[in-house]
């Protein structure tokens, strides 16, 4: 077995938390159950990984199998990576019968014709997600296995999720290969990024909770506002206001959990509005600034602002339009028209 492969496997196993190593090796399926039995998972990780490498040596592992283990690790710990969303455009309108074998062949063909030193690995998952791992080399160097790019694609959709390697120069090539393989003719990056891959999918696949007006035979199951106190001496003074806020919140955010985004960034290029007598700015130039909202779970925190009394309901549409517009990067310029409000660029 190649020394670089052995080292790569050793380092990959070291990344895995000790109590999950067995499960991941089982998912990998490269080592037999009998071989797994011989491993002692209670020793220090260093020793475990050495033993795993030895077993892989027995089975003559090559870089292809090692790459699959890496995909498995990154699939389980997908939220450690930052994912960007790309949208593809199609020219024709014929029905597609996406064939995975065809896709793989075209993708590999396109990449390899431009760059000989690449490692390309595919893995399909139950939810129809196709994971692609690409390790990049140069015409003279073998691929760098420690800085691969990951692509997640669902067939017959125009969206691709990419977690780029640091080697950004390979991105155009990757995009090319994707549109060729999936029969699209153009691709562009959307202004949508997050660590939570599933939330990004929820947003572009329209799987997140939207409040649609429907007639349902069952009564609506909204969350109940604080229940009536048992003690009748306690009276809710602003009950109607609370109910108004709750109702508005439900309308905007829906009843279900929100997609998980960590930030929203607004680049302002608007004129600073102040009392003309104050003359804070000598020149009447757009005041450029960047406003960034960060949170472990931005949309949930926005949803709880009004009920917590920290903001007025309804919230600004600039904040609430995030899942609908599928973006968390905005550029706001002045709108030169009747309306004095700012204009959000598409």
């Amino acid at each position: 077995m190649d020394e670089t492969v052995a080292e790569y496997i050793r380092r990959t196993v070291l990344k895995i938390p000790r109590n999950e190593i067995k499960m991941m090796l089982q998912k990998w399926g490269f080592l037999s159950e009998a071989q797994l039995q011989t491993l002692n998972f209670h020793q220090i990780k260093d020793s475990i990984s050495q033993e795993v490498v030895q077993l892989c040596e027995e089975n003559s592992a090559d870089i292809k199998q090692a790459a699959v283990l890496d995909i498995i690790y990154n699939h389980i710990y997908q939220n450690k990576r930052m994912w960007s969303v790309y949208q593809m455009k199609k020219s024709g309108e014929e029905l597609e019968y996406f064939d995975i074998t065809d896709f793989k062949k075209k993708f590999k063909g396109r990449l390899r014709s431009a760059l000989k030193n690449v490692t390309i690995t595919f893995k399909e998952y139950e939810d129809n997600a196709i994971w692609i791992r690409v390790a990049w080399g140069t015409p003279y160097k073998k691929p760098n296995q420690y800085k691969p790019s990951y692509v997640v694609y669902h067939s017959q959709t125009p969206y691709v999720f990419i977690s780029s390697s640091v080697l950004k120069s390979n991105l155009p090539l990757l995009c090319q290969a994707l549109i060729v393989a999936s029969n699209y003719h153009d691709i562009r990056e959307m202004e949508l990024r997050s660590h939570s891959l599933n939330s990004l999918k929820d947003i572009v696949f329209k799987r997140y909770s939207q409040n649609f007006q429907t007639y349902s035979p069952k009564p609506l199951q909204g969350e109940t506002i604080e229940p009536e106190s048992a003690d009748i001496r306690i009276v809710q003074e602003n009950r109607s206001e609370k109910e108004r806020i709750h109702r508005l919140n439900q309308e905007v955010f829906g009843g279900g959990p929100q997609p998980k985004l960590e930030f929203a960034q607004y680049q302002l290029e608007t004129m600073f509005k102040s009392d003309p007598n104050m003359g804070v700015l000598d020149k009447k130039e757009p005041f450029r600034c960047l406003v960034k909202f960060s949170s472990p779970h931005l949309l949930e925190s926005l949803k709880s602002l009004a009920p917590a009394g920290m903001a007025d309901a309804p919230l600004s549409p600039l904040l609430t339009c995030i899942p609908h517009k599928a973006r968390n990067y905005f550029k706001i310029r002045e709108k030169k028209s009747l309306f004095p409000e700012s204009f959000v660029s598409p």
Partner: protein
Amino acid sequence: GVLACLEMLESRAHREAVEQEEKEKREEKSAFLKTKIRELRLQRDQLRKKLEQLEKEQLGKEGIPLDPPLPSPREVLEWKIGNLRDLLQVFQLTGISGKLSKHGVCFSLHTAFEGSFLDSFHLELLLRPEFQEFRIQRHSIPPFIPLEQLSRKFLPSDLRGFLDSLFQHLNAFVGRRHQLEQFQEQFSEYIQGNPQRNSLCNLLSFRYQIPGKSGNSVFRAQLLYEDPCRSLPTEVSISCS
């Protein structure tokens, strides 16, 4: 000879006596019922007279004939609401239902396959009567359904055609997916490995063997569903490895 004659005469006499008895009974009963009828008729006439008299008295008092009591407004409203609810439920059962929303109309598409209701999808259309247009404002349609294509083809002139076509696409997709899930569940011993599918479930391939019958041979089947609005395949190919 003589005894037989005597017996015959005796039985004849007996029979005639019985008949006579029955006849008398019938006549008695008939008479009784006739009197009864006469009595009841008399009673009816008396009651009629009484009723007429009472009505004349009432008329004298108010001048308006008495109507049967009206249902209260509340009862009428409840009946109307109940009726509408049932109607809405019927619409939901048909699969396509709608509701006017703040900005336009919100359509709900409830898919079903072979008697079980499956996924629901929603679509909000912005109504702009002045421009004669319907624009899709929000929706929860999966990205592999050709929503843009359909809206370009049918809207704004043919809203019904648009909804029908979209509904057919969604129903067929959900039907194909449901069949695949059922297939994996019920024939798990036959299938080898994982069936390969795409998002629309319109190309499916899997390997299988028939336990006990096919021996060691494994078959590979590929199903192609050319019509996106149907949940049955148009082409099937089976090969043996």
